[in-house]
């Protein structure tokens, strides 16, 4: 690189060297006086955007165990297990393996009930590999209203069965007219008895489950 060729250029160099240093000092001085932009992690945290792809969050009541999210996952992180009782689910587990998860959000979109989401939580520190397989369930077994609905459904089923039986049973005994209202009463009594039986049966079932 050639140096200054004229004395004028030399003086120009001297002035430039001095003056540009001062300009630079003004810039860095400005940075020196402004508040730093870093935060004292972990006591303070940076604000996280709402759509951040963090740890998953499952709305368990909505989930229908369709396995759409598990199929969508490119790495097969999601595994779920539930026992079906008619229309209601008894949850065993819903695990997501964070050792594999790449936080791509592909599991969120296929859900037909819009119940799996990604939250803004991101801290996943552990000293044991088993702790990285998160169970996203908030409760195991059945939800209280699910259980109630199941019982209602079973009651109705039992009623139907009893009604069918009542219709089938009095048919061969068709005879005197007076017998009909009695039979009707009997037929009415039978579903009640069957209901009591079913109730007793179910309560026993509930105890066993509880």
């Amino acid at each position, binding site marked *: 690189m050639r140096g200054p060729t004229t004395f004028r250029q030399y003086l120009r160099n001297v002035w430039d060297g001095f003056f540009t240093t001062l300009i630079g000092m003004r810039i*860095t*001085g400005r940075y020196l006086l402004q508040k*730093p932009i870093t935060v004292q992690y972990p006591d303070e945290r940076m604000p996280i955007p709402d759509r951040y792809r963090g740890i998953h969050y499952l709305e368990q009541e909505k989930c229908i165990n369709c396995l759409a999210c598990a199929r969508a996952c490119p790495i097969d992180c999601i595994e779920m297990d539930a026992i079906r009782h008619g229309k209601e689910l008894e949850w065993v587990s819903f695990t997501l393996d964070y050792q594999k998860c790449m936080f791509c959000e592909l599991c969120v979109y296929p859900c037909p009930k819009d119940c799996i989401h990604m939250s803004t939580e991101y801290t996943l520190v552990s000293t044991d590999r088993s702790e990285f397989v998160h169970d996203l369930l908030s409760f195991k077994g059945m939800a209280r209203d699910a259980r109630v609905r199941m019982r209602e459904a079973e009651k109705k089923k039992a009623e139907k069965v009893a009604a069918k039986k009542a219709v089938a049973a009095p048919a061969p005994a068709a005879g005197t007219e007076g017998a009909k209202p009695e039979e009707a009463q009997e037929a009415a009594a039978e579903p009640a008895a069957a209901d009591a039986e079913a109730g007793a049966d179910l309560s026993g079932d509930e105890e066993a489950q509880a």
Partner: protein
Amino acid sequence: MEHGNYVHSLLDGVAPDWVPGWAVVVSTAAVGVALLIAFVAVLAMFSVWLERKVSGHIQCRYGPMYVGGWHGWAQSLADALKLLMKEDLVPIGADRVLFVVAPALVLGSIFGALVAFPFTPGFFFADIDLGIFFILGMSALTTIGVVMAGWASNSKWSLYGAMREAAQVVAYEIPLGISLLVPLMVAGTFNLLEASQMQAGWFGMKWLVFQNPFMIPAAILFFTAALAETKRAPFDLPEAESELVAGFMTEYSGLRWSFFFMEEYAAMFLMSLVAAVFFFGGFESPFTHLAQRAFVGETAAVADLPLLYQLTAGVVLFAKALFGVFVMMWLRWTLPRLRIDQVMTMGYKYLTPLALACVLAAGTWEAIF
């Protein structure tokens, strides 16, 4: 002119009659040595903390925040403790004697240079009539130490760093000395104490930097040369972190390395002190001058000056030097590093002729006015 030393007069007053004169002198010296070592150590630790904070804030981040609570003030203490506990390593094939002597020489020469400073009107370690000459000489001794370190390390990086350092210091000693000729001409004395006391009064108008219009360019030239002398950015090639690992300090670790580190900050402080004394009024300030007038009058013996005045003077000088150190740190993060040929060009082709021109012009001005 004989100036009274505060500590000497204090010890002289306290000592009983049977203690011989030389014992008082020796004990004054012992006190001085202890104080100097303590001072330089604390100064180095403080400067490191300040550097990290200033660097941090310029880069939009905080520096140390954790150790000790308020802005990590104890970080340097923790680092010093860690360095003390590190293994004392001498590399294979290294020249053992030179390797061990180098950091001691480097730090010792800066200690020696600091001896000539008047920190307050009554408190100085030695009243040297050739003060500034002595200081320049002692601070140049550090180069020998650096070259020794580079050679004795038996490492390519260290040798490169040491050779660059030698070339750089030789190049910048000349403008350093010549630019100091300007205030020496105006002040008329090499003695730092007298130069400081001469700048008393008139709310800073008597500062040497305002006595001659060519003092301002001289001050800038001196500061630039001082940056190069202390291997400070933008002239920090000898220890260029991204190029040579740590330059001549590569093979050092633990306490030995901390000597080099202390030397860097002590040298920065030294150069800022010289600038403060010869350009910006030394320990004189409006407060001290008024205090002196109020308490003892202008021509009183220094030993009679009250302790409060001494302390204020010391604090003022310290503040001025610290500002110089702060500007050096500021410049480090403002300017990119110069290449070695650019450093040489600047030293020989720009600073030296400009310094000579300054001396010529200042001398002419002094002769006329």
